[in-house]
Every structure is written in C-alpha cells, then in structure tokens.
C-alpha cells in the first residue's frame, strides 16, 4: 500500500454535472506534487473529498496508507490541510490559533507546546507567536496556517491554492518554503494551483481539466521545450486570451 497519497478512480457529481471523472494519481512519500488546473477544473471538489468534507462512493482515497473510506479518522490524523479560504481566528494570537488546532488533534500540555514551537520555527514565525492574527499581513497569515497544518506532524500536506490574494514576494516566499519543507522533512505535498510559476521542474505535475486528468509526470518531462504555461494552454485547448489572465 502506498504511503504517500493515492487517489484511485475517484468520481463526483453535483446533480447532473460531473465534477470529477475517474480521477487517479499517486504521490510518492516525500514528493511535491502540483495539482494544476484552471478555475473550475475540479480542484476544490477533489480537496473536499481528500479532506472528507464530503464523501463519494466512487473510487478510493488513501492518505499515508490509510483508506479515507474505511478509516477516515486515521487518514485525517496523518494529514495537514491549508484551505483556500482563511481559517484563522483573527481575534486570537498565533499561538492560541495553533493550540486550538492541536487540541482538535488531541494534543495538549507540554507536548502541544513543544510541537507548536517546532512548527512556528519551521515557518520562521515563532517571534510573533504572541501577536493577534489580525495584525499579521497576508503572507504571515498563510505561514501561520501552514505552521498550524504541521503541528501534529502529518506525513501528507494538502494546500488548496495557498497563495491566493498574496503579493508576488509573499507568493514566491511561501512557494519556496513549502518546497523546502518537502525536501528537508520528507513531507508529501499536494499543492493545488492555477499559477504555473509555482510549479518547479522537479515537481510531479498532475494536470486536471474539466474533472479529468489530462497528464501526469515530472514537470520538466511533460513540458519538454515549451514553457509550462504554453504547455498547459496547449493541452487545455482554450483560447489563449481568455486564459492568459488566469495564468
């Protein structure tokens, strides 16, 4: 059984509309996989299924060897999630936000404090632990959310368009940081995005379009001589002008 992340023939419908059609891909332990797709490709639906916000009878999802259908809580315990919409309590401090999350994972006392400190160190925000989330800029709020997702030491980290709303510098910094975490801590990462510059050549690329996987492999192999942006546009066969803005 694969220890990283495995999605096997997962389908999902909203009424008559097919959102995901037999989506399959694996991410090996310690790999950074970019789930690239235009808006409406089905990324958010896939994330909701991966995080069990809803479930489907079609297909299997396995997180670090735990089947999401059969042992959902064991699978959730091994997973860290950064949602697209902000989920910090702005009136609480960074540390309080992380403590709340740690407690939801059954962690408390000294153990929780030690893990929180470690997570804050990993994202280089420990010095600001006592500040209210409201006082942080967008980039630091995102860092806090990533630190929070690492408190329980998950083996798989899921991020749903984590750079939405950030300026270019913060976007680059977060993208680099998570790549580094993946390489240094042997973390399996699934990073959903519609921005091609967040995908590095060594990354595994999963290209999702209209609910189906169009291509999968290493980014460098797939794009060949083209830029990733051109490759992506050619493959999704959309009029260039209308997608240019999205990329």
């Amino acid at each position, binding site marked *: 059984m694969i220890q990283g992340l495995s999605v096997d023939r997962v389908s999902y419908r*909203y009424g008559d509309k097919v959102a995901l059609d037999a989506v399959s891909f694996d991410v090996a332990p310690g790999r950074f996989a970019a789930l690239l797709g235009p808006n409406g490709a089905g990324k958010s639906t896939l994330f*909701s299924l991966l*995080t*069990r*916000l*809803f*479930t489907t009878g079609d297909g299997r999802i396995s997180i670090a060897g735990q089947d999401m259908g059969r042992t959902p*809580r*064991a699978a*959730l*315990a091994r*997973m860290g*999630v950064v*949602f*697209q*919409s*902000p*989920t*910090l*309590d702005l*009136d*609480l401090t960074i540390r*309080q936000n992380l*403590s*709340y*999350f740690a*407690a*939801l*994972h*059954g*962690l*408390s006392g000294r153990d929780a404090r030690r893990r929180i400190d470690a997570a804050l160190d990993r994202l280089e925000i420990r010095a600001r632990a006592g500040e209210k989330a409201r006082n942080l800029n967008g980039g630091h709020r995102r860092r806090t959310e990533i630190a929070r997702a690492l408190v329980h030491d998950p083996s798989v980290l899921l991020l749903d368009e984590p750079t939405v709303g950030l300026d270019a510098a913060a976007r680059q910094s977060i993208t680099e940081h998570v790549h580094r975490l993946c390489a240094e801590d042997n973390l399996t990462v699934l990073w959903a995005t519609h921005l091609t510059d967040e995908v590095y050549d060594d990354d595994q690329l999963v290209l999702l379009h209209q609910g189906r996987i169009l291509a999968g492999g290493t980014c460098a192999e797939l794009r060949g001589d083209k830029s990733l942006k051109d490759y992506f546009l050619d493959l999704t066969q959309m009029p260039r002008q209308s997608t240019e803005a999205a990329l």
Partner: protein
Amino acid sequence: MIPYLVALRAIVLREGLRFIHQRERFVAALVRPLVWLLVFAAGFRAALGLSIIPPYATYITYETYIVPGLCGMILLFNGMQSSLSLVYDRETGSMRLLLTAPLPRGWLLFCKLLGSTAISIVQVYTFLAIAALFGIEMNAWGYVAALPALVISGLMLGALGLALSSFIKQLENFAGVMNFVIFPMFFLSSALYPLWKMAESSPLLRDICAFNPFTHAVELIRFALYMQFNGMALLWVLLATVLFMACALWGYDPARGMVKRKG
C-alpha cells in the same frame, strides 16, 4: 477518551474567547429580554389577569410570570445566533477546520453545541441577577435547580439551530428562517401567556403551543426555578433534542456533502 476531552475543552474555550471578544453581542442579548421584562411586562401587568397555576403557590405579577420565558428567549436567540455563526464559519472556512479534525463529526458538533450553550447560560444568569435587582426574585435554590433545565433546553435549541444551519445554503437566507422559526416559536409558547389563557381565545392555538417544544423548555425552566420537577416537559425537551440532533447529524453527513450545496 482523552483526545475527546481535550477537543471538548478547546472548543468550549474558543467559544468563550469569542464571546469575550464580542462584548457588544453580550449586551445586545441582555437588552432584549430586559426590555420585555421592564417595559412590555410593566405595560401588560394591568391588562392580564393571572390565576394561580402550578408551579406558583400564590398570585404572581406578570413580570414574575414571564421571567422563565425570557430565559428561554435568551437560549432561543443565542441558539439561532450561534448557528448563524456556523453558516458564516462555513463560508469563511473555520468550520472546515473543525470538521477535518480526526474525531467523530457528531462529537465535534456536540462540543460546539455545548460551548454555545455554556455562553447562553452565563447570559441567562446575568439576566436573572438583573431581574432580582428589580425585585423579581425566585426561590434561592431554584437558581441552582434551573441549571440542568437550562443546559438541556439550551442544547435542544442549539441543536435546532445546528440542524437549520446545515440546510441553509447562504447567510442571506438566514434572516427568513429567523422570522419563520424564532418568532413563531416564541409567540406560540407559554413564554408570554399561560396556555389556559391561550385556550380562551383559541383552542387550536393552545394545541399548537402545547406541541411546541419551546413551551416545554420554558415550563421545565419555570418549574425548576420553583424547585419543582416537570417530568412531561423534560421528556418532551429530551425527545426534541434527540430529534434535532439527528437532523443536524444528517445535515452535516459528509455523504450528503456539507459544502456541496454551493449557494
């Protein structure tokens, strides 16, 4: 077992912290029943004659009569308001954080319910203290005996809010539900007038009131405040709690897709 309790404590504490940060909400929630008590009841005092009915052993003023109903009002409004915040949380995402915790969803929702009920009860006791300052006092031990009645009634109304929140697609739709749930529930109950008084004007209305679980919550609190036990009301409230909680669990079942119904 310990992870369950750690999560419970954190969720209740977070509700508490949110409450501290929203002091205006606390004041607003108190103003409503106090206006009813000190203005509305004063005006109605002369118009409404009350006979001696259980649990009262003597003639009481109208202000005294409506105190338990106003305690219920606080629980009702807060139960609905906290589910309003759930709809909001669902849209902003913090509900996702809660629901992706590796604990049974039913337990997580129950913790949330208990947290908001605890806050409501602090408000109820503050209201009772202010009422006592104005001379509307209950049996001293009644204040203690009312606690379990308030807890179970708070859970019932919170569970109703929770169930409603799972079926409401968007925040905007909530105002309608408030009007269709809160006001009928409050006015078609024994909160403002005893059921026999209602029967004088319409037996049908009296039957509706007798069916309304809020009536039983109010009666449970009323009897407890006078150190009496109303078994029928307790049974009714417990049944309604189980029913509403089952609806909430069904509404938040991942197989149904909580976020599926995009607005």
